[in-house]
């Protein structure tokens, strides 16, 4: 690892400690989306911010080696496709698009609310990947020779 890229050693050390916790928190928000405030979008944003935290602290080069960007791009499209497939399943099993066709389970338990937790997870992946990749692509833009902002 190139120690010169990215920010200072202090930032890198703190990031190393905090990023897993932030991702864990994001997962918590996503998984409890049907019970508490938050959900797929909010949790996805938190996970995207954790990944961006790594990008800012360690630099683009390091993040590129750490994450498989191509895979993340595919994951973004796959999650959106899964959402649509789940919606169409509601149509095939029941009557309408996005019908909640799984058993609703017990109230206020983690395994309840039918398809909503599944949709939340899918949305979480989609939002996390999209937001991260948007900033990733924008950060990759370079100015032309002799151009200034």
């Amino acid at each position, binding site marked *: 690892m190139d120690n010169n890229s990215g920010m200072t050693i202090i930032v890198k050390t703190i990031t190393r400690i905090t990023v897993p916790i932030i991702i864990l928190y994001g997962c918590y928000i996503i998984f409890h989306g049907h019970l508490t405030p938050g959900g797929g979008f909010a949790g996805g944003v938190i996970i995207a911010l954790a990944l961006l935290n790594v990008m800012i602290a360690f630099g683009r080069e390091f993040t590129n080696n750490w994450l498989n960007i191509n895979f993340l*791009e*595919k994951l*973004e*499209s*796959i999650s*959106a*496709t899964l959402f*649509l497939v789940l*919606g*169409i399943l*509601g*149509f095939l099993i*029941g*009557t*309408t*698009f*996005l*019908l*909640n066709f799984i058993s609703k389970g017990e109230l206020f338990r983690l395994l309840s609310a039918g398809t909503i937790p599944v949709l939340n997870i899918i949305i979480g992946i989609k939002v996390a990947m999209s937001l991260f990749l948007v900033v990733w692509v924008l950060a990759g833009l370079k100015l032309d020779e002799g151009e200034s902002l």
Partner: protein
Amino acid sequence: MILPFFIIIPLLTAFLIAIVAGKKDNFANGLSIFSSLLLLLGAIYNFFTQNQEVIVYKIGNWKAPIGINLVQDSLTIFMLIIVGLISLTSLIYSRQYIRHISTNWKYYALFMFLITGMNGVIVTGDLFNLFVFMEIALISAFALVAYGGKAEEFEAAFKYAIMGVVSSTFILVGIAILYSATSTLTLAKIAEQIPNISYKIVYLVGGIFLMGFGLKAAIIPFHTWLPDAHSSAPAPISAMLSGVLIKVLGIYAIIRIFFNVFGAPEFFLNIFMTLGVISILIAGFLAIAQWDMKRLLAYSSISQIGYILLGLGIGSTLGILGAVFHLFNHAIFKSLLFYNAGSVEMTTGTRDLKKMGKLTKLMPVTSKTSMIASLAISGIPPFNGFFSKLIIIIAAIQSGHPFLTALAVIGSIQTLAALLKVQRFGFHSENKTKITKNITSFGMKFAMITLAFLCFAGAIVIIPEIKEVTLDPIVEVINNNSEYMKIVLGR
């Protein structure tokens, strides 16, 4: 119940293209043509089976004010057919045309998002959902305008993006005000509440919406983005933007909100009429002055949108009939003219009318179809454009506006002059051009010939028996504006 699939199919296609397509665009092109063919066939199937009824589709089985519902009436089916038709021909046209820019699948994914957004705006029965789908369509349109990757294209896309986002913000503010006044976002429910709220709020929100949707429809004075964006975009995208996008995001949204929700207040109808005539005249003059072929066509789009708005503003059955018919006709001949311009640009490498010439021998299909489209748009019988303009002009006389009628006739002469300029300088002039090879492919010719045929065939819609089943139900939907609310809410 295939209504939600008008959104699902293009969305699924876009993501499938992103997952599966490799470096080449063969698969992406094939898949997107297939899915837009499905959309067109679905819309035609709905036309033949359900044109006379209103269908409300509850997503996830949630009832109207709580969940989002999709509404299908004859106006919806009509717009879906236009989107399906123009997107299918544009995709067939794109296969060869886009390869001279790049062979990337991203074009087709963005194109599918554009269709998703437009179909979403058309089928939705919820005001905020309409806004979201409008944004999907707009953002993909920004990206597609800049697809060529040259400086002027980026400038046009940036200008379009700024203007589009400002107008979207206005629409959002309007939605917020309307929501605070009526406590609901379902269009039918808002329509039910409108008589109970202060008329001042209706006028305020109406003004904001007129500015927001007016910018999307490129009505003068909100038109400044259009000539840049439509002339810089790749030709099939220009055809989509000019042929469908400004109508779906602008005119269709205006019809739904001002007619079906607000109940067509007299005050706004007069504004539509005035803005319509202003658009016809000013854009007509600006079109004549252009030497860039696509820019000329872009200005002429604004002037034709003026006719549609004039017809809507007259508000009589005949006026709305003319507006709806002209909307359909304009989608066909303007898309065709943009295909012609794209084909000429690809072969000669220029859009400047002064540098073209002697193209009739070299490009027989392009020059003949462009002649048909020019005659149709100028309102020469027996083409479809003649009948729709005639209906609008008769409606204007009947409603007692002889002055506006005279101006609309002058606008038609302006269109003729502008398009004659294209024919005279673009195709028939004696300029020596060095080009000897025509690179228009079969797909491009097929798209052009199909639309040229429809310029003829479109005119049969005016035969009373056919009009009864095609255009009359649409006029009924727009005219009996409170019916919409009653049927959707099941009253």
